[in-house]
């Protein structure tokens, strides 16, 4: 258990990340390099799961870290950790890309890559889940199916509220409340405190 905590702790070390961002803001390339090394796998993997294309994911990595370099001062600690800032930026850039005309023209409206080895394909040898991933997957399993489905469609398939409502044939208001309640429950299960 201690080992797991230490590993994830390396990622969730906001004070250290903020210190790096401050140096990045001061144009310290070494700090950008360190920040990149900490998060490039995370950003690339997240972009790849949304875009299902290695080249596009690599472009998102470029854009995310370029923005970090240009706008480290846009990070607002009131809104969460540096990792959270990166997550939001990555998702936004990746999902915007899926919505662009060129992306559509290339026929990539297919469902996005699902979460790492979910219960159904656990043990697939291409997927080695980290302890962190397993913890999240276990938490998702504990959710009521209706909530789990809405979170899956929103987060892992990048669908909008109305997109989910259409797909499920559920009223928009229901989608919104399920997403909100699902997120609240998931936070409780994962004991996320901020």
């Amino acid at each position, binding site marked *: 258990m201690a080992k797991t905590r230490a590993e994830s702790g390396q990622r969730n070390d906001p004070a250290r990340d903020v210190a790096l961002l401050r140096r990045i803001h*001061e144009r310290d390339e070494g700090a950008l390099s360190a920040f990149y090394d900490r998060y490039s796998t995370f950003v*690339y993997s997240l972009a*790849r799961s949304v875009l299902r294309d290695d080249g596009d994911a690599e472009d998102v990595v470029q854009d995310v870290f370029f923005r970090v370099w240009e706008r480290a001062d846009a990070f607002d600690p009131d809104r969460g950790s540096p*990792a959270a800032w990166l997550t939001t930026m990555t998702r936004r850039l990746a999902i915007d890309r899926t919505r662009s005309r060129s992306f559509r023209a290339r026929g990539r409206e297919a469902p996005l890559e699902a979460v790492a080895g979910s219960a159904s394909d656990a043990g697939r040898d291409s*997927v080695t889940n980290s302890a962190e991933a397993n913890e999240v997957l276990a938490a998702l399993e504990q959710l009521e199916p209706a909530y789990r489905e809405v*979170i899956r469609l929103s987060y892992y398939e990048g669908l*909008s509220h109305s997109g989910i409502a259409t797909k499920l044939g559920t009223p928009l208001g229901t989608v919104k409340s399920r997403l909100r309640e699902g997120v609240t429950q998931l936070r409780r299960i994962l004991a996320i405190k901020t």
Partner: protein
Amino acid sequence: MDHKIALELLESYLFGTLDDAERAAVEAHLLTGCAECTARLRDVSELSVRLAQAVPQVQAPARAKERLFDRIRTTHHPAKRARASSGRLRFAWGMAGVATAAAGVLLWQTTVLRDELRTTNRLLASTIADTGRLRTELSTYRAEVEKYKDAMMLGEPGVRFVSLDGMEPNRDAFGNVVCKPDMSAGMLYVYRFPMAPEDKEYQLWGLRDGLPPVSLGMFTVDPNGAAMLKMKLIPEATHIVGFAVTIEPKGGMSQPTGMMYVKGMDPMEEGEG
């Protein structure tokens, strides 16, 4: 935007699934400093990180890092020198805000990260002293943004935000420009400016690529050193890549002649060319 609507959209805002208009509207509401929405945003953002950790982790190709550093080295940065100064101030907020997150880390990493945390805590103790004063400034700033939000149409997609950094010897001065992409409307906010002498005023300039700057208006600062300026309309074809403020004789000049106080380039414009 109505608080209730913004609150409903926060998950999707973080998950990146809102359209541009919704996203901009949520941003505008968050700029009002709404405590409930900010707290919810912070909570859900940590969940968003956890969900991201559940996707298969794959290393980015090594060339991606080389490309990134090629890109940052070939991008022109006229404002480079000025950046370091105001960074100190803004990141003082950063360190204070991290107190909450660091407290959470404390709870579950006591053994493994004890040494690192000692350092962190020392750092926090020294910055927390400044927190009260900075928070007050921050809430003043947010109240002002709120006041001018409607005039600015902050909720519109594509609105440009440019930070202005203090120049020597007034490195503590800073500001922001918020303007429509086509420059048909814009606001300047500045802070920590010295009072100008009786016969002088500050003048805002739009910087153009390879062309002389264009005047965007005159202003004076209040006793706290703050000011807001609704920018002069400028012809649509004028391509502004950055902003600067100089001190000039009352009534303004056609071109800058006095000392420069703050300057900032639009990173989006810079990136293009």
